């Protein structure tokens, strides 16, 4: 399969970088519905995917998109969709199909100010919990990565595709309008510098192959046979046994739930992706993610200029939440300031939970529309710094 | 024609009994393990091999097999 990667330096929006990252990762199916601020990804895919022989469809709605994407992956293609908050809400049931049947694909959420339709063209960070807990019924883990820049939007999209194959599940790219719509430098490397994980295929005969490894919940790098490969696969939205036959038995439900949770939680070592700056001697930490990360870094620099021992920590992987790394931060510093673009406090809640009381956690939230200004964050640092 | 009722599949709907133009079937006294009362091809000699029972059965519970003797008789006329 031709990579379609065109190495070089580009001046593009994060949304476009997502599309290029997907193509570099081998994505050859995209289905989406226009929704601000993600539409530029759909438009880039519409232009680029046919060039690499891929299928790009504008579906009739958000639900059709996620189901077509899951189906295309069942059909053997690496697939992706993108949306924003209101569309992600619509996709949540369909996401469950991908989770339950262990189907690899990528869903990107370009967050906008919310709730509801909110402000379509402006930034927010209110879907942090939605993507983790929004799909019906619980009993599953979620993997989500969040870029801070156009370059990371490209790099992490490839990472998302790789993780989706390794963990055989849908993976989120949780981004936002700031990253999605900011134009900056993107460097696309040579093809041989890219690390792309190929889909795992069975090495045993169909009679011996276990489609859903319910009895080995922690196994990853697990094969995913597709239709037309002679494996007689069964895909079902209901709780099903390891063959894919729907079941109401309690022990099957138990095994299925454990499989979908543990396959991620038992492999956390594969999911460490964090960033620290100036944390070595820090007594105060600022935590932010996505489009709010760089203002936080600038504020930390301002604080350092004033002699304050402030450091910056960023979860690049937002789900599963990097508990162990956040605990290390909490054990080191006295206070943590979490800066996020929501008033209800989502990231800060996770940070507080993971800190286990080792540091005091302050939530600096705003409703969105604008990311925090470095000066705003710096003021908050000054308020709480001891 | 040899008619076999696949006991475990029959759900006692009665379509075979009602649809047979030659009234080959009757309800038997036998029940399968689900409690459905099974039909039986009691007048098998009247069977013309029309296959309506097979088509009407929603549960693939009727297996028809052309018997050599009957075919030969038909050929001779």
């Amino acid at each position, binding site marked *: 399969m031709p990579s379609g990667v065109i190495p070089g330096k580009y001046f593009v929006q994060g949304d476009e970088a997502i599309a290029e990252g997907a193509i570099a990762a081998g994505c050859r199916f995209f289905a989406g519905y226009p929704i601000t601020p993600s539409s530029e990804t759909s438009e880039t895919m519409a232009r680029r995917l*046919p060039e690499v*022989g891929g299928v790009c469809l504008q579906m009739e709605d958000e639900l059709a998109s996620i189901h077509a994407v899951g189906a295309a992956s069942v*059909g053997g293609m690496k697939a992706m969709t993108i949306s924003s908050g209101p569309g992600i809400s619509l996709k949540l049931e369909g996401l469950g199909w991908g989770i339950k049947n262990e189907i690899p694909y990528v869903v990107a959420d370009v967050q906008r100010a919310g709730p509801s339709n909110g402000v379509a063209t402006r930034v927010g960070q209110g879907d942090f919990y939605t993507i983790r807990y929004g799909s019906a019924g619980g009993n599953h883990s979620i993997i989500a990565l969040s870029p801070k820049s156009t370059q990371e939007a490209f790099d992490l999209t490839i990472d998302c595709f790789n993780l989706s194959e390794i963990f055989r599940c849908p993976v989120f790219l949780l981004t936002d309008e700031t990253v999605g719509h900011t134009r900056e430098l993107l460097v696309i490397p040579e093809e041989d510098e890219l690390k792309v994980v190929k889909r795992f295929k069975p090495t045993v005969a169909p009679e011996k192959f276990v489609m859903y490894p319910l009895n080995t919940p922690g196994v990853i790098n697990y094969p995913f046979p597709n239709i037309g490969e002679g494996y007689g*696969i069964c895909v*079902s939205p209901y709780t099903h046994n390891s063959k894919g036959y*729907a079941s109401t038995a309690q022990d099957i439900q138990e095994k299925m739930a454990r499989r979908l949770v543990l396959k991620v939680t038992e492999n956390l070592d594969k999911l460490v992706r964090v960033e620290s700056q100036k944390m070595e001697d820090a007594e105060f930490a600022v935590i932010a993610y996505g489009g709010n990360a760089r203002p936080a870094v600038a504020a930390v620099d301002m604080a350092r200029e004033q002699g304050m021992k402030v450091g910056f920590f960023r979860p690049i992987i937002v789900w599963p939440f990097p508990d162990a790394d956040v605990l290390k931060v909490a054990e080191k510093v006295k206070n943590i300031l979490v800066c996020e673009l929501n008033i209800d406090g989502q990231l800060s809640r996770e940070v507080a939970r993971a800190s286990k009381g080792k540091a005091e956690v302050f939530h600096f939230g705003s409703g969105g529309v604008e990311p925090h200004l470095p000066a705003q964050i710096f003021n908050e640092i000054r308020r709480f710094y001891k | 024609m040899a008619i*076999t*009722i696949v006991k475990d599949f029959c759900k006692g709907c009665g379509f075979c009994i009602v649809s047979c133009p030659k009234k080959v079937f009757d309800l038997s006294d036998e029940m399968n393990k689900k409690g459905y009362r099974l039909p039986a091809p009691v007048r098998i000699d009247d069977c013309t091999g029309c296959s309506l029972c097979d088509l009407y059965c*929603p549960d693939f*519970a009727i297996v028809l097999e052309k018997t050599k003797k009957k075919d030969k008789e038909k050929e001779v006329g």
Partner: protein
Amino acid sequence: MSTVGETLNVLHPLVEKYLRKERMPHMACSGCGIGQVVHSVLLAIDELGLTPKDTVWVQGVGCSSRITYSTWVGDNVDAHHGRMFAVATGLKMARPDMNFICFTGDGDCGAIGGNHFIHACRRNLDVTAILFNNGIYGMTGGQVAPTSPVGAVTTTTPYGNIEDPFDMCQMAVAAGASYVARWRSTDFKALTNSLKKGIQTKGLAFIEVLLQCPTNFGRYVLKSSNPQDVLTWIKEHSVTQKEAEKLSKEELTGKYLIGEFVHRPERTGIVERYQEFLKTHQKY
């Protein structure tokens, strides 16, 4: 010679060849017409020489779909409620070389799945879709469907349905499906032939089948759980298009037209158009 089969030593040849034995008997109620339609589908598959290697069964949620869940011995893809057509779109675009037999129902196609249904017709997706129209929601216990007749007493219309039903076939025709037809579960030969025609027609083949639901439609709407009564009702309320020409508008009210409505294989669909499109636009 007659015998009554003891165990599964004797199996129907279609079951032997095409269905997963451990999933039989299927979960349909006694007297339900779904099994009859599946029988016709298997005959069509058999007569055309389709195989488990090149054919996928796709279904949604409802009796229409759950009875065929993981029943076909090849690949089975069961979608969320209403999303069968969206899933079929993804599957077919990924594997245009394979055949897709798709099952759907009153709610799956006409209610929650309505949008995906009309767009699949508009795109003329090259699959064969069979709509099980039993005029009610069976799996969930007998609620009204968008295909329920006016006046039908159901669990959610205890005083009688006041809404008009869809004519799903006319919607498929208007939206662009290449082949559209309506039959009854007991139109065995016509249905099998129509299925063969639909499978062989490029573009979306939409085949609606009126069938008996003795458990819910029978009990709630007709006050009888006897499947024969439901079959009789269907017969009394259906008329061939030729017969319909002789009837007045009043006489036709509440009647279902049976037969083929459209066969336009010349209308291209998204699958072949996309393949053509790539010939121009693929660079790498």
